[in-house]
């Protein structure tokens, strides 16, 4: 149950993309010219709106804006061509590899996993390729899934989907040429999965063409069944894809066929590259002529989706706001655009709650933050409302008080909005008195850190991570720490420092996480279980390794039943707070903008990104 060593979780990738998108290289000369122009055009105007503190409002509220929770899923107008402005290219179009929220937008419009979520839920998966909910054996070691009949591949394959295709789709995830990033974490529990390299899996049984049975090596069927919403379970025709999967890396994506309502535009031989997809330029989705609406819950209103790749997000978003049949496609809408949308284009903004969490990792493996009381002192001193304000304020964030975030099972059980009751967690704006108390408990009677040495703080460049980092750094200095503060490119901050324990970074100020499916284990286990501390690609950023908590997690992995699992992991969440495993400060709400003529539908389960199978034109 752990994420790939090689690839960061999609939340981290989102963060990386966010940073890259926020920075651009310009010459100073240009800036000076801009500055002079600005002086001349002082009509730019200054904001005069009053300040307000970031209230910890209802975490599921979208502040009156449309959200995946209240948007209409019916009555869309059929037909039309949607234009999408996308700053950066896709990472992977192959459903067997994709692990990034932006990739999911096109993958889920073209592929049908066994189960998938409707846009307005992140917890109630519906049978998609499957005909019914999974049948789980009492011993939790077998999962049986019946497939719908009458689902056909797009041209040039055209034939009906069978259970063999689902088996091949999952098995190819272990193929090094495909290298699915989460196969080991979620599908490694299938018998033979732990050592699989792409061939048939011993634990997959195919009783007939429309039934697949998974035999597991451990009694974790409930958790495994939840993972069948991942796009790896979307069928792949072996006789067609196998030759592409023999290439290293597999180039099946350039020839991929669809089972969903849309397909990547291709030629009669199935070639997508150079026909529907021009890397770095555009991707075109057209209707899958073999899609059978009767087998699907998606309405698929649009005729075509044309995705422009390239540009700068602040410019693209303005084009979206002033445009008609157009939406943005980005991991995070810039704060300046959100403000503009709220003030001038209110009807064109959608706010999606439950879009993940951010926290400050304090390295608990080495001094000084090996000392739990010091971590609590930092938690107590931190002005979490300030951190949230830097991320867009209360319309787009909630102050986090624990690690399970809204929309994740166990959130309410572990305290909901207020979180677990500990004095260091009570003061959202920070408390000097409580911080001093824990400083004294940590062995610093003056209430300030006097332990000497310098702690390394590595943040990511670009807004809002840069602001997060500076606020955290200043708080640490106020507590008496001598800091060595560095901002580096987001990708470097993670891949070279925060994800690499031997670098001994003391503080990573804004690491982020979003779960893959509705199970609290996906939020807490890999990020705080000591057994998942990896030499590289480590996402237990705090290197938290508490035997008591590790044991509780191992036990909770085997708990059955949604309510029971939620309760078990909520207790672990409380334990993590009790030990100040990290300092959570933000539960994200994602703001997305759309053109005047678009009835956009965002996915609650995919950080609010647009769902092309539900979006329509007005």
């Amino acid at each position: 149950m752990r994420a790939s060593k090689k690839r960061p979780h999609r939340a981290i990738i989102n963060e990386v993309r966010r940073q890259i998108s926020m920075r651009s290289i310009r010459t100073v000369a240009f800036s000076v010219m801009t500055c002079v122009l600005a002086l001349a055009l002082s009509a730019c105007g200054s904001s005069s709106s009053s300040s307000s503190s970031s209230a910890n409002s209802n975490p599921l509220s979208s502040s009156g804006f449309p959200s995946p929770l209240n948007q209409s899923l019916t009555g869309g107008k059929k037909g039309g061509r949607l234009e999408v402005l996308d700053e950066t290219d896709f990472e992977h179009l192959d459903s067997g590899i994709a692990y990034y929220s932006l990739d999911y937008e096109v993958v889920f419009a073209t592929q049908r996993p066994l189960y998938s979520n409707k846009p307005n839920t992140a917890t109630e998966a519906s049978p998609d390729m499957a005909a019914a909910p999974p049948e789980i054996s009492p011993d939790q070691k077998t999962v049986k899934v019946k497939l719908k009949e009458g689902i056909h591949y797009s041209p040039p394959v055209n034939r009906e989907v069978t259970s063999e295709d689902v088996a091949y789709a999952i098995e190819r995830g272990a193929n090094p040429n495909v290298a699915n990033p989460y196969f080991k974490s979620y599908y490694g529990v299938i018998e033979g999965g732990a050592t699989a390299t792409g061939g048939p899996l011993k634990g997959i049984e195919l009783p007939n063409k429309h039934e697949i049975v998974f035999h597991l090596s451990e009694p974790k069927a409930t958790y495994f069944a939840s993972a069948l919403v991942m796009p790896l379970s979307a069928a792949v025709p072996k006789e067609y894809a196998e030759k592409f999967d023999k290439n290293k890396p597999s180039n099946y994506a350039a020839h991929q066929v669809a089972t969903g309502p849309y397909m990547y535009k291709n030629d009669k031989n199935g070639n997508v590259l150079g026909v529907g997809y021009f890397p770095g330029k555009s991707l075109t989705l057209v209707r899958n002529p073999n899609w059978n609406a009767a087998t699907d819950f998606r309405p698929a209103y649009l005729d075509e989706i044309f995705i422009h790749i390239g540009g700068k997000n602040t410019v693209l978003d303005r084009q979206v706001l002033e445009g008609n049949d157009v939406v943005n496609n980005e991991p995070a809408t810039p704060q300046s655009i959100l403000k503009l949308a709220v003030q001038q284009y209110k009807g064109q903004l959608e706010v999606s709650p439950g879009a993940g969490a951010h926290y400050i990792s304090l390295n608990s493996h080495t001094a000084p933050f090996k000392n739990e009381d010091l971590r609590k002192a930092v938690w107590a001193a931190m002005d979490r409302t300030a951190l949230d304000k830097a991320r867009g304020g209360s319309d787009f964030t909630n102050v986090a008080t624990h690690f399970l975030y809204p929309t994740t099972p166990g959130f309410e059980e572990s305290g909901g909005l207020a979180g677990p009751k500990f004095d260091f967690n009570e003061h959202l704006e920070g408390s000097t008195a409580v911080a001093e108390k824990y400083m004294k408990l940590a062995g610093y009677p003056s209430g300030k850190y006097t332990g000497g040495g310098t702690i390394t703080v590595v943040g990511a460049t670009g807004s809002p991570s840069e602001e997060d980092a500076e606020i955290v750094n200043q708080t640490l200095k106020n507590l008496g720490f001598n800091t060595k503060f560095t901002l580096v490119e987001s990708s470097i901050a993670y891949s070279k420092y925060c994800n690499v324990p031997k670098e001994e970074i003391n503080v990573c100020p804004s690491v982020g996480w979003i779960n893959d499916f509705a199970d609290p284990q996906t939020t807490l286990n890999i990020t705080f279980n000591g057994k998942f501390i990896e030499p590289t690609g480590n996402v237990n950023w705090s290197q938290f390794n508490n035997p008591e908590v590790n044991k509780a997690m191992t036990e909770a992995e085997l708990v059955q039943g949604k309510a029971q699992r939620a309760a078990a992991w909520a207790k672990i969440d409380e334990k993590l707070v009790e030990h100040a495993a990290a300092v959570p400060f933000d539960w994200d709400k994602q703001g997305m903008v759309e053109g005047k003529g678009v009835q956009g539908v965002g996915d609650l389960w995919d950080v609010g990104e647009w769902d092309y199978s539900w979006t329509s034109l007005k």
Partner: protein
Amino acid sequence: MSVGAAEVLPAPGESSELLELIPDIAARSPFQLFWMRLRRDRVAMVSLAFIVFLIIVAIAAPLVVKLLGLPGPYVQNLNLTDSFGSPLGPSAAHPFGVDQLGEDVMSRVIYGARVSLEVGIIGTGISTLIGVVVGLLAGFYRGWTDTLLMRVTDVVLSIPILLLGLGIGAACSVHGCIKGLIQPGLSTIIFLISLATWPYMARIVRGLVLSLREREFVEAARALGASDTRIMFREILPNITAPVLVYASLQIPVNILIEAALSFLGVGIRPPTASWGQMVSSATPIFTTAWWYMVFPGAALLLTVLAFNLLGDGLRDALNPRSAR
């Protein structure tokens, strides 16, 4: 130097009586003549005044900030941002507005002057020192010394300073390089700037020395048994001071811009230290909602660079009247 001597000495054949008729004329030193000419150049004088003002403000930054009633440059106050976290604009309490962290922009612009001037003046000082020594040696000795030094100069000239800065920024950002010897920050910026700019000075000095070493006063010194070192540093160096000063004064704004560019690219001065280039960089994504955050540090950068350039022009004219604008 003989500059100005002709203005006070009688021409051959003129009667000494004539001089007696003009009792107010007195001999002026080269510096007096230079200062007299510079004072006539109003643009240069305004620039000089601005630079002096800037230096005073930079040195007394804590006092200036206190006198103006501004918060310190590192005081964060998110209450000074609006409900979206956008910084608020200029007001009586914060004449230049605040940034995304609620830090006072005016306070940071004042402290930013320290960085710019330190980099500009110290960087130029070091590069001038290196360039003058290398140029003197190459021009005076010629031959293999000249060839060797000029090839080294060519190699150094070929180093792309911004790329080198980016490389060091990426490779040495957290733990530093060479056991922590190279760390991104002010000292590395000054080192980089000195490294990148001394060859220009060296080439100029070499050219001047090649010309001067053949002049009579050098021959005379040599005939009197002066050592090479004495000839270079006591005879030739004073005669190249004017062009060196002019070039150095023009190098200062270039160095300030290099620092700003490196900080703009995120590999210069580290936050939270205030630097104009870094402020302009941070302001770029929010320019449409917080123009003041780019305009004021940008204007400070613009005016400082302009002042140094105009003063440099004035110095050139004052030190070398034949090249008047």
